[in-house]
């Protein structure tokens, strides 16, 4: 049997996990009809071959609902993580390059990080009028500070690095400095930060939907599924919460794994692995 080195193994995991996540994200819209289909002749079925995740009290197929919910979570996670990461990149870079911007951005970071996270997401989502827009705004506006700090710190550190100073003294132009030194160091941080924002965004979306401040009940969101199934757990219908919850954890772990492998692949020191 062929033995893969760590870099190849990381690449294979990265490709497989990305493919699974993409497939889940894409199958959501296709399953939307099936997820909403009610049929009282098959309600409350425990997991079986025809319905691997069972059915709920309205006879809806839980596998279809779970996949549709995950797809929604991933798409929402992508949107919020993208917005957050772009905000972090802009503010972090500005803070590192201009002293005045640094004061303002650092103050803003402290402000956002000073408020308990879940509370802030809830407040913004409420103020924005709940629903899809509210959740997106809430999660996007509360997740940028950590990455912004990392980017700011990275650029500040880079500007003091001997190779950066030496290049400056050799008369290298600003554009070239950006291309040669700044971007190769920033982009991996940015992409890994972006991917690692996904699981946060997805979990917070599910949390506030679970608590009733997020997506409306007609959306098959994971948080909504879990919150509804709470009432049926005492009746012994364990499959209503176990499978969707487990699937959510799995998606989050896959995203975290993708981010970790991406970091490993982009670091040239890992060539020797």
């Amino acid at each position, binding site marked *: 049997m062929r033995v893969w080195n760590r870099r190849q193994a990381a690449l294979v995991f990265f490709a497989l996990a990305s493919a699974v996540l993409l497939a889940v994200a894409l199958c959501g819209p296709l399953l939307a009809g099936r997820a909403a289909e009610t049929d009282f002749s098959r309600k409350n079925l425990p997991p079986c071959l025809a319905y691997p995740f069972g059915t709920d009290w309205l006879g809806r197929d839980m596998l279809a609902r779970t996949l549709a919910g995950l797809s929604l979570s991933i798409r929402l996670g992508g949107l919020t993580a993208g917005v957050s990461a772009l905000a972090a990149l802009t503010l972090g870079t500005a803070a590192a390059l201009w002293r005045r911007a640094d004061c303002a951005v650092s103050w803003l970071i402290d402000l956002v990080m000073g408020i308990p996270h879940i509370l802030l997401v809830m407040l913004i989502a409420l103020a924005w009028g709940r629903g899809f827009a509210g959740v997106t705004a809430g999660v996007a506006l509360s997740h940028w500070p950590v990455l912004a700090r990392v980017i700011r710190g990275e650029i500040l550190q880079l500007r003091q690095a001997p190779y*950066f100073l*030496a290049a400056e003294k050799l*008369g*290298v132009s600003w554009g070239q400095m950006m291309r040669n*030194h700044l971007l190769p160091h920033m982009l991996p941080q940015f992409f890994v930060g972006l991917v690692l924002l996904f699981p946060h965004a997805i979990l917070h979306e599910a949390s506030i939907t679970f608590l009733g401040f997020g997506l409306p009940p007609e959306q098959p969101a994971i948080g909504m599924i879990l919150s509804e199934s709470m009432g049926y757990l005492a009746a012994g219908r364990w499959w209503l919460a176990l499978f969707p919850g487990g699937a959510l954890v799995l998606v989050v772990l896959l995203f975290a794994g993708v981010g970790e492998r991406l970091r490993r692949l982009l670091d*040239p020191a890992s060539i*020797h692995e």
Partner: protein
Amino acid sequence: MLAGVNLTVAPGERVGLSAPSGRGKTTLCRLLAGYDQPDRGTVALDGRPLSAYKGACPVQMIWQHPEGAVDPLIPLGRTLAEGRPAEERLLAALDIAPAWLERYPAELSGGELQRICIARALGPQTCFLLCDEITAMLDPITQAQIWRFLLEETARRRLGLLVVSHSRPLLERVCTRIEHLPAPTR
């Protein structure tokens, strides 16, 4: 720290600088190369303040640790091109193999990186070279090769050289004049 220090290096002159650890040798080099600005006093080249020179600085410093002085994320060929030397003669004289230029810094040894740093610092605009303990961590053969090259090159181009080292024999062998950094007066 460096109050009252007065140092002049003429073109073609090789000045050695010795002082105990912590006396400010590296700080002096950073000031002379324009990496830091002095609180008081001036650093001047041909009577003009060094900061008035735009573009590539005529005073280049070679760092003690070459691992930190090259960007770990780009191939060494691009690092070298920043100094615009790429003279075949220079690379040959420093024994830099063309294959090194496609590699990343993590794939070369300290001595090999230091040769690349020296080649990078010897761009056409360079008039003065500051060598801050540049061979302290290299084996004796590499040290000898690098110093022989630097002596030939400075003689050919009439470069001014400031050599910082703890090794008295090295300074006596290489330099035309040896200066000692005085202890701070306070």
